[in-house]
């Protein structure tokens, strides 16, 4: 195994039973304890970037990544830093093999999507972030000034969760695409998880809505609420209570083990997981929060504020 990129809104339970899925062979829905499969595989490098998800970001803190290239991989934004990821790096269990910026990552995927060895950029110049990166500096032959070149990044596997796609993998996305467009085209293997499967006819009626066309896709997995505990724009919000439980438990290795036992090894199917995290009542609440019908409830915010004082 090489490079795994796991994208925002991805399904945490699913996936990766069979990485060598043949082209078009996408009727095999794989929902299961994917997280543990990933762990079993021990990918050597996890390429996880900035704004992204709660758990995959903490892969290294869960013991299933021993090398990482990082842009924003130790923080959970307003929620604070990731105890398990920091611990993994500070204790030497996981090695940071490269630094990069968010734009830098994005554009490494752009280079790959475009079939280019590199993309130039003005970011990273003059910093230690550059010194610890895979980028190079050349003299721009047009202006004579220094310019940074970001090498293409082709993740071996990427997993992207979308609101809807057809069974061939033609996917529409509402809201921001972050780096989905470029990443889906850069990845060697692409797994799409989706809130629902729609007819190809619907895709063809508005072809300009397709962000990810089928020929990029190796597998499609139908997984309603598959982004939990993260958000699915226009559908449901972050489950801040569950995220808080993880952030609290993951302060110790024992807590991490306890979390994995309860939510990963302890459940057979994704629907059991959804029951465990609060079932239909919780899911309905997350929908209401996303639609601004109810304020967010987030225990970590109060804790954060107390810690600051």
């Amino acid at each position: 195994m090489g490079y795994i990129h796991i994208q925002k809104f991805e399904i945490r339970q699913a996936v990766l039973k069979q990485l060598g899925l043949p082209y078009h062979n996408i009727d095999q829905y794989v929902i299961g304890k994917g997280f543990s499969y990933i762990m079993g595989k021990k990918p050597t490098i996890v390429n996880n970037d900035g704004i992204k998800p709660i758990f995959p970001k903490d892969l290294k803190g869960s013991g299933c990544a021993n090398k990482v290239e990082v842009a924003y991989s130790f923080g959970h934004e307003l929620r604070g830093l990731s105890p398990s990821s920091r611990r993994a790096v500070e204790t030497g269990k996981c090695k940071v093999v490269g630094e990069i910026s968010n734009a830098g990552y994005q554009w490494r995927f752009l280079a790959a999507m475009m079939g280019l060895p590199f993309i130039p950029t003005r970011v990273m110049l003059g910093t230690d972030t550059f010194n610890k990166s895979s980028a190079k500096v050349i003299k721009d032959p047009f202006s004579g000034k220094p310019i940074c070149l970001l090498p293409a990044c082709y993740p071996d596997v990427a997993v992207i969760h979308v609101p809807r796609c057809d069974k061939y993998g033609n996917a529409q996305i509402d809201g921001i695409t972050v780096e989905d467009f470029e990443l889906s085209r850069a990845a060697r293997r692409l797994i799409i998880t989706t809130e629902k499967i729609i007819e190809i006819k619907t895709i063809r009626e508005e072809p300009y809505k397709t962000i990810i066309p089928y020929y990029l896709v190796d597998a499609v997995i139908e997984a309603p609420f598959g982004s939990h505990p993260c958000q699915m724009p226009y559908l449901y919000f972050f489950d801040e209570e569950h995220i808080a439980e993880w952030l609290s438990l993951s302060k110790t290795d024992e807590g991490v083990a306890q979390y994995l036992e309860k939510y990963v090894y302890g459940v057979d199917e994704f629907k059991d997981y959804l029951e465990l995290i609060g079932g239909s009542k919780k899911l309905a609440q997350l929908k209401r929060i996303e639609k601004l019908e109810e304020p967010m409830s987030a225990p970590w915010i109060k804790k954060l504020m107390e810690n600051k004082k």
Partner: protein
Amino acid sequence: MDKKINGKQKIKEEYSSTEMLACVASNTLEDRKSVFVGTGLPMIAAMLAKRTHAPNLLLFFEAGGIGPEIPVLPISVGDSRTFYMAIAASSMHDSMSMAQAGYIDYGFLGAAQIDKYGNINTTVIGPYEHPKTRLPGSGGANDVGTLCNKTIIIMRQDKNRFVEKVDFLTTPGYLDGYNSREKKGLPDGSGPYRVITQLGVFGFDEKSKKMKLVSLHPNVTIEMIKENSGFDIIIPKDVSITKPPSKDELKILKKIDPAGMVIGK
């Protein structure tokens, strides 16, 4: 909050340090300009500016939200609140390209350490190979610090944070000062514009690019500024006093963040 400062009378402050930071940051922004915002204080500052002196401020989020009408405080830069009723819900490639092409006037940064040239560390404390503390890393910080025309840094100030040399140079300020930023290939005329701390507001000398005091927050002395810095800060003759939050501003802040998610109670 009650404080005794410099032997002066105890003064009943009607605002918190965080509210002060938010208001100063807000007042630094201009109308009809664009700003690259993250979550937290920058978001609060930008929302406050839009509701006071800068209604036509254009917000960019790195994940692709552009020009939203923020309904409630987003908790993530990819949060759907960052593109709620936006004029465009685009991509990181688009936002970052706009920044790189010079479309974005202001950018916000936080910092664990800063040096006199405005260089910032958010990566590690201690040696890189065996860090004492692993911090978030660059994330979008290097991008914002490189590409936005004027960067505003909001951070806590003390001797461990205002340092002679940062442990890791995550995000470029003026590098070694003078014209070293441009010489390295960073965009002409860009760079740190203001540093806002709990004690004052700082800018940078036009030529040497060394940090200089712009204004002292109320009840803060120049001595306190010096005591809380590991490097020499240029102190000009005329240092103004930072305008404290107005009652209106405080009222709007409460509306923006009623739960005190960022502003606190």
